[in-house]
């Protein structure tokens, strides 16, 4: 049984309400920080914890906070990115829906560390009902003196505002989020300058994921060093994984980054294996934009080591034989699933969500979608596969924001690992309409060890 920090209390009855949350030990971290620590000490504690950004890139949070420019007389902002729109990722929703005060608590502490008197939650438009939950939690916190002027007599003022997006994936990119928050069109900004120098309204800004900010609470409560003891190497602490696809128990799981991928998929504590006696074919371990891995590379790295649910192990082998932890959207595909169809669905998503600002992404995503649709519906040519490869190569790295990369990686990985499935679609278009390719050689039969 892995250790739980964030979801430990999530199922206490009425934990959404302030009284229950407080009774269960809530807002201790705010008391500790505001009464006994300086802002820099809080930042140091986060640095010591080795906490890495949970939004996808995995950048060390303490270091990010350290980069925040602090010119005198200029306000600083903390913006919490709750625009969780990556297909397959739904961990932040779970946190905000079931234990909203944890986010508010983390935000107050983080705002104190960063010196942000006005902090924002930018939440995706589709989470309409969660806005009400958060607003209620904020009202309760303000009523009990955790927000407002001179919190706990420390002289620190803090307000939290919730801003709804209008449902654009691109607004999860931090600079597009800031544009949208300012009321503009959600186009990513060109970096540099980075938000830490020029962010919201040209002021220094830190943008953090919901889960990152909630993780500050246990870090403050238990101490950064204690938090760093959980996990392996540089993957410290616990991580929420939202598992979905062909598994027996889809849902949000908190793992302490010491378990193997195999255990995560097959253990009854987590996903509970593949239903209906099917075999594991492939998996996207970190949300739709990270490379897909076939079963044999998923459970063991190319070097033959067991693949663990950690940042380093999932990325082992680079993009040739590895993937990424990403945002923790764990999508499992069994042997009935068609990788071409799956890749087409993702390409369609990215085409729909491209902001249209820079040309490779705007034109390339639509082009890839059309070619994939041709291959999927039996109109493809063998040269289309090479063309797809070339298009994704010309998108990747050449765009303003990471959406171009996110659109290119799934296509690249699908062709890299499942090329014979694409070729089968081209060679047997009739057959491809009625049945799927199945397992072929790349998904080894597995011996269950758990």
């Amino acid at each position: 049984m892995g250790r739980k920090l964030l979801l430990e209390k999530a199922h206490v009855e009425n934990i959404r309400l302030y009284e229950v949350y407080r009774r269960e030990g809530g807002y201790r971290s705010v008391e500790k920080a505001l009464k006994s620590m300086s802002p820099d000490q809080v930042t140091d504690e986060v640095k010591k914890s080795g906490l890495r950004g949970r939004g996808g890139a995995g950048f060390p949070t303490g270091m990010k906070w350290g980069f925040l420019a602090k010119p005198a007389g200029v306000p600083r902002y903390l913006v919490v990115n709750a625009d969780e729109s990556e297909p397959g990722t739904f961990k932040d929703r779970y946190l905000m829906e079931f234990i909203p005060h944890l986010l508010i608590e983390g935000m107050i502490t983080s705002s104190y560390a960063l010196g942000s008197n006005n902090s924002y939650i930018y939440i995706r438009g589709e989470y309409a009902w969660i806005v009400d939950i958060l607003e209620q939690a904020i009202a309760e916190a303000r009523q009990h003196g955790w927000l407002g002027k001179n919190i706990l007599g420390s002289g620190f003022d803090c307000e939290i505002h919730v801003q709804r997006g209008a449902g654009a994936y691109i607004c999860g990119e931090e600079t597009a989020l800031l544009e949208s928050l300012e009321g503009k069109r959600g186009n990513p900004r060109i970096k540099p300058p980075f938000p830490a120098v020029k962010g919201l309204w040209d002021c220094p800004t830190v943008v953090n994921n919901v889960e990152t900010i909630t993780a500050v609470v246990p870090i403050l409560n238990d101490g950064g060093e204690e938090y760093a003891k959980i996990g392996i190497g540089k993957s410290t602490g616990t991580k929420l994984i939202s598992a979905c696809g062909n598994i027996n128990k889809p849902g949000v799981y908190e793992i302490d980054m010491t378990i193997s991928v195999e255990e995560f998929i097959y253990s009854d504590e987590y996903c509970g294996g593949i239903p209906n006696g099917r075999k594991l074919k492939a998996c996207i371990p970190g949300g739709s934009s990270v490379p897909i891995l076939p079963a044999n590379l998923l459970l063991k790295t190319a070097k033959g080591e067991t693949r663990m649910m950690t940042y380093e192990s999932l990325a082992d082998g680079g993009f040739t034989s590895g993937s990424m932890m990403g945002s923790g959207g764990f999508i499992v595909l069994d042997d009935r699933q068609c990788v071409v169809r799956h890749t087409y669905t993702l390409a369609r998503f990215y085409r729909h969500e491209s902001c249209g600002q820079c040309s490779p992404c705007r034109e390339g995503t639509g082009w890839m979608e059309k070619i994939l649709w041709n291959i999927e519906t039996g109109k493809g040519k063998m040269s289309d596969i090479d063309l797809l490869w070339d298009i994704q190569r010309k998108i990747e790295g050449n765009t303003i924001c990471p959406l171009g990369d996110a659109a290119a990686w799934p296509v690249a990985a699908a062709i890299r690992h499942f090329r014979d499935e694409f070729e089968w679609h081209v060679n047997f278009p009739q057959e491809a309409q009625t049945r799927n390719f199945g397992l072929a050689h790349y998904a080894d039969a597995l011996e269950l060890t758990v």
Partner: protein
Amino acid sequence: MAEQTNKPANLKVTIDNITVDVAPGTTILQAARQIGGDVTPPAMCFYSKLEGSGGKCRTCLVEVAAGSAADPRSMPKLVASCRTPIADGMVVKNITSDRVQEARAGVVEFLLVNHPLDCPVCDQAGECHLQDLGYEHGKEGTRYEFNRRTFEPEDIGPYIQLHMNRCILCYRCTYVADQLTDNRVHGVLDRGDHANISTHISKAIDNNFCGNMIDVCPVGALTDKTFRFKNRVWFTKPMEAHRDCDQCCGKVTIWQRGEDVLRVTARKDEWGEVQSFDGKPGWICNTCRFEKKKASDWVIEGPTKVNRHSVISQGHYVGLKKPTETLPAVMDGRDPKLLMDIHTVSDVNKIELSELPGPATSENFKK
């Protein structure tokens, strides 16, 4: 740039083996423009006179081989040269980098996949930056086999014709509306490959300086309604002219056929941008642009020196300014070997045709 030459130039940057001193804050693209010639990356969206422009089209991507003298690490990704400031000791590769050439060819292809390629009926043809870009950096064939994206025609006002199908979404016209006119009434609607320039209310653009959107448009998306289908630009002769205007600088280029003034535009420099006069960009007002269509309205100064290596420079213009020749410097003093001498490699020319009795046949070459 005129306003930057006054500042001390104390940063050194090497672009394609050519070192140049630039003022702090200069971007790679502007440093390359100081050198000129082939070393300058193409720019479709960047416009030095429009604040905030650039970074979008990705044609100006370059490779930074060394970030600065203090930190000589290379940058992992190609960077948009129009928005990347110079650091002292930076080493940039543009035409000497295969990665850049490949990425740029890719960007050209992306820009063209949904472009209608209706140059034969497009008023911009001949002075179109996308034509130049495609000619210089593109591939001759297309790999795109689908229907091109189209938009419904929209009337955006009395002076400007919008052809959304041709648009490459450089955003320049929105910056013009933001920075030159008192109220922007058009913008980019929708997203992704359906993003389009549009107004909320049809026929809404009638600001006095909105005509400059035509000048900044790199393609034929925004064209002059008063010049529409009147003539091809390479048949008209550009003449520099001025008049006293109480609203703008009044310094323009008039495009004549015979004595008729077919079109009036702002004066452009070799990068296709509006020239500056006294440190201020020479934007012109709608009265000068659209109303003054008689030769007698203008004091004609003389023929325009066309210094852009475009189709319009191929004609009959005087004082053509050739771009700086940079290739020998780029290649470290070696002369480029552009073409193989056919006489040294072909068997055909080993026989003296003049010695043959009568026309040569294949029999003569079998010997």
